[in-house]
């Protein structure tokens, strides 16, 4: 059982880091459905750099850098060119999937470096995720920067007349968001499962994306959701040893999405919105054009 929880928490680390990045972007009004693509870039580039240089540090930095670059690309298309966020995000996923397969294939196989030391079996990144959750919550809700980020995501017009530079705020949020996804990918490929193989992420980026909606854009709920989804993933790997003869692993894998859909339905009810307001950033998905 101990082993199960360790594996779950290590998996949830990756969901949480990528999800936190996406939360910041979405709080600023920009959705990036290409989390999977950005993570694949972070995983593959991070893996290759670490393998060729033999340095974990360089590997993680490369993962973060490529993620930030993907974020910049997304920002340019959606903010500057007013492109559709969902379409562009899908583009990032497809690009990430194809390009990383091409780039990564020659490096397929284990990383072949000493494993990153754990703390009682837990990855140090798990603790990093805890700290990041707190920091991002603090920035979003206790600082002027965070207020600006949330404001451009709720109502960019109001932000503008309050003297906020909407474009700049959105750009930095989306770049940071991409960097976090890149880091999450690198953590997967360098720490969680240090082997490069075809489609190594198996859709974890989409679980992270679902997690954001599940979290109602709150970092703390996101963290607990990540733990839940991490545990569900572990169950899906070997369902027979937990709940024999109930569901196949593929059914278990749908659970994060099923739960997210249920949460979204609840959120859209009058009952919910009359008590807690619309949890979703109001301007999410909408390009901002000054009149």
């Amino acid at each position, binding site marked *: 059982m101990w082993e199960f929880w360790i594996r779950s928490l290590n998996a949830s680390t990756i969901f949480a880091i990528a999800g936190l990045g996406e939360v910041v972007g979405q709080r600023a009004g920009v959705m990036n459905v290409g989390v999977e693509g950005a993570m694949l870039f972070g995983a593959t580039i991070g893996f290759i750099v670490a393998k060729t240089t033999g340095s974990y540090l360089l590997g993680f930095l490369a993962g973060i850098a490529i993620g930030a670059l993907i974020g910049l690309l997304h920002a340019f298309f959606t903010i500057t060119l007013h492109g559709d966020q969902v379409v562009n995000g899908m583009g990032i996923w497809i690009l990430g999937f194809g390009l990383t397969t091409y780039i990564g294939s020659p490096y397929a196989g284990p990383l072949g470096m000493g494993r990153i030391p754990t703390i009682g079996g837990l990855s140090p990144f798990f603790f990093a995720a805890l700290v990041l959750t707190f920091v991002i919550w603090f920035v979003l809700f206790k600082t*002027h920067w965070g207020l600006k980020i949330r404001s451009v995501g709720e109502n960019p017009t109001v932000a503008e007349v309050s*003297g906020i530079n909407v474009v700049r705020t959105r750009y930095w949020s989306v770049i940071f968001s991409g960097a976090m996804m890149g880091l999450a990918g690198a953590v997967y490929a360098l720490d969680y499962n240090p082997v490069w193989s075809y489609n190594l992420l198996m859709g974890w980026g989409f679980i992270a994306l679902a997690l954001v909606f599940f979290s109602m854009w709150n970092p703390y709920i996101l963290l607990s959701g990540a733990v839940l989804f991490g545990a569900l993933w572990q169950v899906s790997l070997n369902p027979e040893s937990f709940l024999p003869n109930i569901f196949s692993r593929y059914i278990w894998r749908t659970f994060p999405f099923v739960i997210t859909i249920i949460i979204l339905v609840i959120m859209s009810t009058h009952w919910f919105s009359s008590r807690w307001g619309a949890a979703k950033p109001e301007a999410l998905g909408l390009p901002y054009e000054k009149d």
Partner: protein
Amino acid sequence: MTEIKQGDIVLQARGITKRYPGLVANDHIDFEIRAGEIHAILGENGAGKTTLMSILFGLTHPDEGEIYVFGKKVNFRSPLDAIDLGIGMVHQARKLISAHTVLENILLGHPHAGAILDMKKTAEEVKQLCDAYGYKIDLNAKVWHLSEGEKQMVEILKALYRGAKILIMDEPTSALAPPETEKLLETIQLMTKNELAIVPFITHKLPIVLSVSQRVTVLRRGKIVARLNTAEATEQSLAMEMIGREVLFNLKRPDVKIGKPILQVENISVHDDKDYWAARNISFEVREGEIFGIAGVSGNGQQPLAEALAGLRKASAGRVLFENKDITRLSSLERWKKGIGYIPSEQRAVGSIGDFSLVENLLMSYYYDDQFVKWGLIDAKKIRQLTQELIEEYNVATPNPDVKARNLSGGNLQKMILARVFSRKPRLIIANLPTQGLDVGAMEFVQNKLLEEKKAGAGILLISEDLDEIMALSDRIAPMYEGEFMDILPGGSAQRETVGALMAGHKQKAVQA
């Protein structure tokens, strides 16, 4: 900045001019605002108030003219420049983020907000402002929980906290309940004691302006037509200045025999999108060959009423009869088929689909007609030919019928919409602000077409803000104010002052005059 004393000139506009294609929105506007005064700027919709306001707040650049703030010439690049110089704006459509708390809204973008927000200190400072003006508001409440009056308080507090010395208010009393209005008036009078200048922009509710302001500037068709000390003005004189005396129309009203009733509306009540009462207990009838005019400033319930009659909005109570048959529950399509034509006020949002060609737009009134659509297949040739004919008949300026609707000018698009509705030979036409935003030529065309339909025996329900238009066209006039008809007057003998006063909500005084 030197100390400001009561009566100092704090803002001065000289020769402000702004032109838009086919329209001079502001024509050499001069005025000055003094510290400690309430200086109302009055005008009908389309008189150029919004443009002037945008210019003063840095949202729009004037083509000509200069603005001086505290004696210094300024050139606003954005609202931020105006805010930094001490100009605050209280918007009519509240510019607040509803998911955030009151305090967060006040603090957003404040130059002295540190990297880490000091909510405690801000709350104390805002509390002091609240105490000074007798505001009671929960600073940690989310804005979407607040009433309209409270939201306005937040906007005022935000401007004051930012150090505003000149407060521009767009229709400050429009969405407020009477007690909230009283509170507002009390507060702004208090503010003037602290050397603040208050500049409310107002279209209606004249008594309120009179009761608190010291000076009034009246705008009409982009020009200043009167500068008055409020003490010298009366409601009647202001209404006259606002509306204007000159007769602009030279329409020949045809002599048409008024026939039997086509539309009978019995005690109808309508709610608006927010579930508030928009129109209450309205009864009237429209007869064959009659133009029934509803006069009123936008937002007094005309729009929801028109939508209810067109079948686009559910009536909450009451009955609608069309040619003696109850149509209250019929869908809009069933109403079109029976012979009701609707000209919506939003040409581009409701009246047409911008990305569709003129042919396709026309088809929207013909797709249910067997002559044009058989077995679900469109007779493209026939509908195209009809479009071509209508383009000629209605003088629509377009190279060909395949042009997208969005590329037509307002006037030409309205002609096309008219062509679509009238070519179905409706027995009843509901025309909602049919000439709004049109240039004079197109306006005349639309009005003449309405008269032609009248001559052909159709009943017409004309909804307009333009008093000249209502006076010139209507056989009977119903001034509408806050969801109710103030009266129903015969068009021929009604005094424009009476109608003007009624649509501004003065029942008693108008009757005496």
